[in-house]
């Protein structure tokens, strides 16, 4: 159906529209190939399939997604751990618009823009991009009234993804990063679960694209922010080099100090809920980058509503003792009701657990 819609000629298109109408798929017959239709992003229900948006050229199995014009790929310094999935990120900007620069927090995306995150898993996680298959694409659309979040699940042929408001489950048996077999009970979150993580007060917001997290990982790497500025895609960023933007320490960079990396890991993996306007506001545990070292960060903090999530431990962080810290216990667990984050993972992040454990081990007892 979609292939026929793309056929040239008015007659072919007319046939296509009739056929589509008969099966209730009228929405599938937009002008494929012209790039996203700004009107579709401003109003109306989510399209039934990802291809209808026209963010990408026709997808094929084993081939990377090829963005249309005004759809820009980007990477983050640090990403939320999602069962070892590799994430390809794109942002769409409607014609004549640009992202507003902000030194703190998420950049200001214009109305009509969209953020796309495509999750893929490889059969051997020691080479996570080789043979990777797309599982889902999460679409965040910035409308006048705020952000909306729509999940799409890719088909077996890897040619398109279908709108899946209730999410999906997939079982993956792969080779883990340590070379051992790893069973992943991968879960595509449902639409409400999207909001659980992307919530600020009553509104939905992106998490990853902050200036800090969009910086280049190394001094000699090209700066995406500077590139966007030069191309008019980013406004409000002063000209010249980017010294004013602090760079998030890369979690994976084993050559840099442990503490900032551990805090960066907590920031990107926990702070979307564990902040004062987030889903875990009631816990009183706040794990954002700017949180000072104290009770609210978990140091000497007793559990409140953790229940059995607390295990046998007395404190969220027991300085010097990761093995007695609830934080590590919950990061290490895969049991629902214990595991943190609650959503988005079925296996633990060995890098994160080791890093946060090392940070807690080095915290002075006097901090308690």
């Amino acid at each position, binding site marked *: 159906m979609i292939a026929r819609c793309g056929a040239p000629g008015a007659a072919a298109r007319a046939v296509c529209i009739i056929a589509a109408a*008969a099966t209730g798929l009228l929405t599938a017959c937009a002008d494929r190939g012209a790039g996203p239709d700004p009107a579709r992003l401003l109003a109306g229900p989510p399209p039934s399939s990802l291809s209808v948006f026209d963010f990408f050229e026709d997808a094929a199995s084993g081939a990377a997604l090829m963005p249309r014009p005004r759809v820009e790929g980007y990477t983050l310094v640090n990403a939320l751990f999602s069962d070892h999935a590799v994430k390809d990120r794109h942002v769409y900007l409607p014609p004549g618009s640009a992202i507003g620069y902000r030194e703190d927090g998420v950049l200001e995306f214009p109305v009509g823009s969209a953020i796309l995150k495509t999750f893929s898993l490889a059969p051997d996680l020691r080479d996570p991009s080789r043979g990777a298959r797309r599982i889902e694409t999460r679409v965040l659309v910035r409308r006048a009234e705020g952000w909306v979040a729509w999940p799409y699940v890719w088909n077996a042929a890897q040619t398109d993804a279908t709108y899946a408001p209730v999410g999906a489950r997939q079982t993956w048996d792969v080779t883990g990063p340590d070379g051992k077999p790893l069973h992943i*009970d991968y879960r595509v979150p*449902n639409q409400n679960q999207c909001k659980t993580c992307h919530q600020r007060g009553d509104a939905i917001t992106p998490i990853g694209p902050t200036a800090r997290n969009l910086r280049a990982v190394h001094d000699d790497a090209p700066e995406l922010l500077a590139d966007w500025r030069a191309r008019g895609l980013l406004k409000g960023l002063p000209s010249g080099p980017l010294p004013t933007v602090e760079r998030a320490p890369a979690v994976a960079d084993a050559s840099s100090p442990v503490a900032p990396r551990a805090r960066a890991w907590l920031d990107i993996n926990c702070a979307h809920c564990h902040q004062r306007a987030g*889903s875990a506001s*009631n816990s009183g545990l706040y794990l954002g980058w700017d949180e000072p070292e104290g009770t609210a960060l978990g140091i000497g903090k007793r559990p409140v*509503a953790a229940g059995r999530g607390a295990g046998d431990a007395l*404190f969220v962080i027991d300085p010097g003792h990761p093995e007695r810290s*609830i934080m590590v216990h919950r990061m290490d667990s895969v049991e629902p009701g214990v595991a943190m984050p*609650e959503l988005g993972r079925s296996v633990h992040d060995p890098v994160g657990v080791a890093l946060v454990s090392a940070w807690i081990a080095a915290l002075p007892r006097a901090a308690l």
Partner: protein
Amino acid sequence: MSSTRIAAVAALLGLVTACGKPADSVIQPGAGAAEALQRRLIEAKPGDIVTLAAGRFEFTDGLSLDQSKVTIRGAGPAQTILSFKGQTGAGEGLLVTGDDVTLEGFAVEDTKGDGIKSKGADRITYRDLRVEWTRGPDPKNGAYGVYPVESTGVLIERVSVSGASDAGIYVGQSRDIIVRGSRAELNVAGIEIENSSNADVHDNIVTRNAGGILVFDLPDLPVKDGRAIRVFDNQVFANDTPNFAPPGNIVASVPSGTGIMVMAASDVHVFRNHLRLNRTAHVLVAAYFLPTKDAAYDPLPQRIVLHDNFYGPGGDDPQGMLRPVARAMGGRLPPVVWDGVDTFGGRTIPDVLDMLEDGSVGFIDLGLGSTPVDLTAARPRIQRPAPSPSRPVEPPPVHLAFDPAAPSKTGTPGDADPTDVLHEIIDAAARLKEIDKPAPSKDAP
């Protein structure tokens, strides 16, 4: 075009939703039911009633409702069962984040975390529900049965919870709360009102928990200073289950056999409750006893008033941290125990407790003086504290605009009062419970 043909064309176009009334359709148990229900909850519009048929629904993931003004209605807490025995994801069985939601007529069983949680969900009603961990008390059960938090307007009625490893019915960091006609059994705490204000907890049956009814105020939380809480007309008996909470949780410190415990909250009035066979103490009033760095937190309870409660046998086998204290006193505690803490950070207050019970009701002041508490510093005495100079006033009844039992200005005299019906149910249940119990050798002093 005939209506039949319109329907046929609509069906052909896959547009049934525009013509039929799927919003009123009943969700049946069976294959695909979990997904159908979650989809229905995601697509619900304000005013919708999501109806669940009788039967058993099995879930592998948590459910969530983010829309406002939606009712989820089952065929009854014994008929419509949502089982989460096979749950492999999410922190609770059902999460509600919309306002003006009503949950009624179903059961939630064996969730891996909390049973039903509502967060920032104002004017929520939990009615005719059952939340249960079917294997009985177990540290691996979820923490809370029903768990409204950060909400204004909470009505919990005819809800039964058993097996929770923290509190069966828990209301946290909320205000304007009614918990009534409910039953909490075999939990660590039966009912807990925590860091919350303006609450009426009445006409509940609370039995076989470790602690019956807890009114707590805790540090290091965004909402503190819980106050204006009335606990009355509850049946609180035989709370004798060993405390099975994980050790780090504050509720793990509640001695098994505690009837009603007030910790660090203010303006709490406890009256006309029926307390018996609680082996540690019927009523325990205490300060928050651990060190805290929370500068905005007051660990002292203030203006706690006790009057007209019925105290049956109890206090004969004190547990937990009160056991050594009781041992020094011959192994028993009187019905009312106060830790005697009135001082914190060098400040002493004169109005912690008004013990207004009849002179025949036993009382002990453990004389601990200040918090953080050192139990070895106990200097027990039986004298009651002097009446508060501030003469505490009972908080006004909680009225919720959305409460169907709230007194109506337009009601005519002679109309049946729904709360009367509630009382009948409770009295009947209490009588049944008494039949199960061996007759006590002696009754109240």
